[in-house]
């Protein structure tokens, strides 16, 4: 085989997930990056392999089979750069989402300032703040020390002090941290990310580094009024990635092949959402959720702010956290009453044992979709508690994760997302059917054009533009008249009733004008309905008008819920 190379720009992305490893191929077609194909195989970082290699090899092999393009040589090595005959790839990126759960302890000065900010930083990684200590902590020092030891943290996030501000309190706190490190055996000592007053950085680093690994990053509170999380987020991601790299067998072997160092999938995911946030309506913001096996990730961004949040809810082993944390009754409300609470709990616990199992009948699929709705509701609730979303109006909503791709129709996916997120205003819904958002974020570090051009292609499923109408009218009464005018001048009229959901056909990629006449004080959040029509884009589910109200009220009686769920699917064009 020839080893000559030529100028080309194909990119192979690998995402190592907790359940599956996916290989995605991008290439330049007619001067623009396109998504070519993907291949997936079970991840092998767990027993019996304890090495990511087999899963990566299998996923690339499947990609080869589906594209007919040779990416591996006869010895199973990646052909990089590509050859004249088109074999191989030019660039290679890796993202990792099979991260282990981290126990985090945060230290800061004032509860409402640095401690609050450092806790926000902790929200971005897969883990939990198990102890949080500020200067107003009323416990004696030895009790604080014992509490941290009992928590057995993997990571300490240490913030405090504005630039040029307080140093004595920080030094006192650092003595406590040093005491904790001294007590713990070396293999058990947590790493430290210091994100406080930079004047003390070197001194603290020198002190801690004889005991553990320390990383200094920018002060997250340079002044009392300013919170700057971005540089610390990046450094934290790198630190966590480094910790994972040490635990993930085979990643050290693969990293030298990468065109840019491996990153956490959540970091790539956040990069894309941050980029999109600057492109869309500044009053709204882009919202994205990825529901994984062990944990889920949500990111929000507009022109000014962006944030990333991780939750221990997932549809694999993370499903047990639903049963642990919340009343199963909330989840049962998304079901039609054909199964008892005990049966539902048993199903979820069983699924946590076998995260890659597949629902084979309708009842089990309905249960898994109910669990997905419930996870989305929990995420929205937690985001509200964390005060993370400036608005519930999003443009667009991007959803990723195998749970929403394991549906029979796009309609099922759309309903799950709408029921779970319950957005306001007008929002396009986009499904990341190949789970590529994280990889796009990683590939964007090589060439920013790649994510931009792929995002504009058909690699994503445009589910629908959804108009969310809210009214206090009685269920069943007319609250809106809608006319969708197509590009060819033809139109479709519809009367919208309170409590209903309706789809107006408009193919994916087509645009139309939606004329709305509001009745009975119906509103679409933050949208001024004048005589001007609204320009809408179609999706595989058309243009959807959701008049079911916010928050959705579900009847207590299972029989009524069954009827309601059936009606919603029917009105959207389902069976």
């Amino acid at each position: 085989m020839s080893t000559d190379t030529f100028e080309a720009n194909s990119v192979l992305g690998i995402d190592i997930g907790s359940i599956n490893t996916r290989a995605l191929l991008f290439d330049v077609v007619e001067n623009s990056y396109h998504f070519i194909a993907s291949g997936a195989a079970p991840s092998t970082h767990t027993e019996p392999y304890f090495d990511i290699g087999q899963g990566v090899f299998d996923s690339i092999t499947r990609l080869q089979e589906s594209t007919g393009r040779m990416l591996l040589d006869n010895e199973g090595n990646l052909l990089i750069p590509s050859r004249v005959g088109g074999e191989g790839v030019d660039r290679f990126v890796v993202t990792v989402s099979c991260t282990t759960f981290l126990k985090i302890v945060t230290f800061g000065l004032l509860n409402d300032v640095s401690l609050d900010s450092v806790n926000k930083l902790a929200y971005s990684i897969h883990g939990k703040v198990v102890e949080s200590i500020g200067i107003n902590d009323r416990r004696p020092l030895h009790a604080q020390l014992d509490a941290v030891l009992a928590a057995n943290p993997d990571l300490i996030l240490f913030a405090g002090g504005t630039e040029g501000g307080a140093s004595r309190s920080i030094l006192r706190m650092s003595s406590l941290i040093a005491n904790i490190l001294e007590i713990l055996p070396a293999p058990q000592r947590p790493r430290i990310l210091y994100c406080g007053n930079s004047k003390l950085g070197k001194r603290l680093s020198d002190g801690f580094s004889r005991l553990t690994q320390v990383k200094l990053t920018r002060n997250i509170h340079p002044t009392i009024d300013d919170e700057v999380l971005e540089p610390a987020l990046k450094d934290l991601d790198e630190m966590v990635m480094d910790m994972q790299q040490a635990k993930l067998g085979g990643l050290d072997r693969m990293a030298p092949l990468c065109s840019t160092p491996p990153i956490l999938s959540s970091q790539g995911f956040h990069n894309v959402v941050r980029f999109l946030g600057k492109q869309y309506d500044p009053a709204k913001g882009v919202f994205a959720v990825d529901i994984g096996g062990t944990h889920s990730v949500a990111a929000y961004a507009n022109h000014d702010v962006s944030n990333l949040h991780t939750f221990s809810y997932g549809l694999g082993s993370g499903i047990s956290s639903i049963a642990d944390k919340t009343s199963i009754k909330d989840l049962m409300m998304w079901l039609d009453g054909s199964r008892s609470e005990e049966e539902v709990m048993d199903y979820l616990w069983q699924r946590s044992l076998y995260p890659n199992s597949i629902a084979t009948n309708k009842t089990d699929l309905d249960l898994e979709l109910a669990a997905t709705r419930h996870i989305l509701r929990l995420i929205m609730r937690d985001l509200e508690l964390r005060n993370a979303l400036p608005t519930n109006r999003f443009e667009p909503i991007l959803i990723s994760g195998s749970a929403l791709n394991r549906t029979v129709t796009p309609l099922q996916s759309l309903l799950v997302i709408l029921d779970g997120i319950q957005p306001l205003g007008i929002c396009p819904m986009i499904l990341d059917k190949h789970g590529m958002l994280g990889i796009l974020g990683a590939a964007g570090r090589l060439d920013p054009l790649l994510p931009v051009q792929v995002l504009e292609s058909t690699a994503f499923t445009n589910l629908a533009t959804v108009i969310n109408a809210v009214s206090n009218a009685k269920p069943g009464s007319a609250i809106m008249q809608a006319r969708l005018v197509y590009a060819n001048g033809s139109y479709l009229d519809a009367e919208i009733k309170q409590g209903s959901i309706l789809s107006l056909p408009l193919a994916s990629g087509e645009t139309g004008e939606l004329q709305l006449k509001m009745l009975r004080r119906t509103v679409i959040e933050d949208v001024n309905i004048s005589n001007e029509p609204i320009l809408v884009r179609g999706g595989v589910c058309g243009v959807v008008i959701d008049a079911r109200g916010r928050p959705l009220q579900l009847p207590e009686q299972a029989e009524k819920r069954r009827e309601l769920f059936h009606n919603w699917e029917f009105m959207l064009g389902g069976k």
Partner: protein
Amino acid sequence: MHAQMTHVHPLVFIRRNRVLPVPGVVTVRTGQKVTPSDVIAEVEIPTRHYLVDVYRSLGMKTPAEAERLIERKPGDLLQKNDIIAETGGMFSRVIRTPGPGKIVSISGGRVLIESDSRKIFKTAGMSGMVTEIIGERGAIVETSGTLIQGVWGNMQTGSGGLVIQQEYVDGELLPSAIGLNVRRAVLAAGFCKSPEVLQAAAVAEVSGIILGTISSSIIPVAEAQPYPIIVLGGFGKFGLDPLSKKVLVSSSGREVAINAVKWDRVTGERPEIIISLPSDGEPYPVELEYEAGQIVRVHASEHLGKVGTVQKIIPGLSRLPNGLRASAAAVKFESGEMSVVPLANLDVLHMTSEFLGTTDEGG
């Protein structure tokens, strides 16, 4: 596709690492015979401390100045009210220990005293022989015997004589199973949904319970028990699979070691039952591909808990009853029923067959 496996072996060679999470003291030597409860390694984990701030208490100008007044050094053992530091002179001020303990460190003008600790142990968890010491962490223990892997455990370990009562092995564990003969015994049952039975078993001082399945509603009660509870199949009422049942019944009266840990695929630790036997077993394989002839257990969705034989691996993707598509196998169940089951829902019950005769006789 690589197969998900559960090992059910009447006689195999078993080799297990028994290590502490942190360095400690290894209490066994190579060649030593051990029983399940023998301690392999132990370590003291400090749990309570005093922090005595000499610098601030004595109002010194610098921490270094305070440290000059401290008359103790790290490692010193102290009783309550022992003097830690004193200023000296006619009006000497002293700092005393608030309680007994050991000095961990002296820095920044502060004395850190460890006042309490707890010991953690790693036990052998099976009868066997120590074949290798893992420095300061533990040892490798080897044996030959019966191995049955589970899917869930309540984080306890223990051992005892296996008592088989056929009516419970075939069905639910009921209060009537907890009789006078169960003290220090390991019980086996199809499933359990009653928290009272588990609590009664604790009162009766059973050494362990082996269940086919358990109701998820009693997980908190199971986790609170002082004896090991191992679940072999999962959650619900589908009970013991026929292979595990057969191996258990044939092991009645033998000493059973239960390691009821949580299943952690990242570390490879899995709940398991080990019955050491005086014969030599062969090592078992850890990797398999799905193939025709394998005995499989369905672990999810339709046919949950059923055991059958793979007739063939269906090429490409198969359409499932709900419309989803997946890689699948044609499986013949014990009832004679044939069905298409996604490979992702199949667990190969891997066993050496010579002990119990052919294993696909039910298929």
